[in-house]
């Protein structure tokens, strides 16, 4: 179904939503596109990203940490599985 199937799931992403300011670098730089802009709004009025794995099991986080490195707001935590 998805080409992402060829990757192994390595990590999960936690979003510290109150720190997010909605620049969406994470969404843009994720090589497997597992982050997407969410509908919800935080206290400051920004839409934090949501981790799609929770919604769609075909997308996979490969644990590259790029989202974390690009996040200017320290709002992303990538946690490796195991």
């Amino acid at each position, binding site marked *: 179904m998805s080409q992402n199937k060829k990757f192994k799931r390595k990590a999960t992403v936690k979003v510290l939503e109150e720190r997010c300011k909605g*620049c*969406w*670098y994470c969404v*843009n730089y994720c090589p497997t596109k597992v982050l997407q802009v969410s509908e919800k709004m935080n206290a400051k009025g920004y839409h934090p990203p949501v981790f799609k794995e929770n919604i769609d099991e075909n997308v996979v986080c490969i*644990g590259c940490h790029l989202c*974390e490195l690009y996040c200017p707001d320290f709002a992303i*935590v990538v946690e490796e599985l195991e």
Partner: protein
Amino acid sequence: MSQMTDMRKMEEEWLRTERLPHVWCPGCGIGIVLNAFLRAVIRRNIPKEKMVVVSGIGCTGRTAGYVNVDSFHTTHGRAIPFAVGIKFARPDLNVVVFSGDGDLFAIGGNHFVNAARRNHDLLIIAVNNFTYGMTGGQHGPTTPTGAYTTTTPYGNPDRPFNIPHLAISLGAPYVARWTTYHVNQLQNSIYKALNMKGFRVIEIISQCPTVYGRRNSMRSPMSMMEYFQKNSVINNKASYEEMELTYNGKIVVGEFRNVGGIPSYEERYEEIIRRAQE
């Protein structure tokens, strides 16, 4: 847990998390630089009480307020001499100056030039966003010729500093330039510089979408990042001419100078004390 996950955990300890979210605008590159900096410091295993961060005034100057180490938000342009005082008094500390381009090169230009000449043992993280962010986007000493700012409504007639050229001409032993797009190279560069002595200068081309980008057809954070991505060329052996930055032109990045063995001011003064007490 992997090293990367551990590092992310430690990063929280190095931040004054009670002060987050920070003051910077959505997509401002300063946070990316701070992120890379903290990771490099953590990788170096520098104890927190051995690290001091000094900033001047400006958006970048606010950095000192977020790092959970001895940290000083000084006056506009004076971060370098303030740091000189700390380092000279306590040579065992790692003293880092983290500030903006206007702070370091316009109002603080004289200090930069002379501190580099004396080769103080300082790491200078110079965030170049082409403008005075804090005061609303006036042109500064790094604004490319032709760029639009609130004080160059017809385009900038000034010529910007070529910061790596300037630093190299002053004998700085480590000189590099990256953009916020180069998160890994930047982190590695800081990591490397942290282990060196003398006046080390890392210029980071950074996006200020709010007051610079929007006047120069890069309104969104991503459009500035795309500009950096598309226009950057890595060339460690670049000539001084190639290092020059032009309006919407190529951005030559790389590690332009890396030489060891030049004694720092602090080291040379040890010899002075020895002679005085002979």
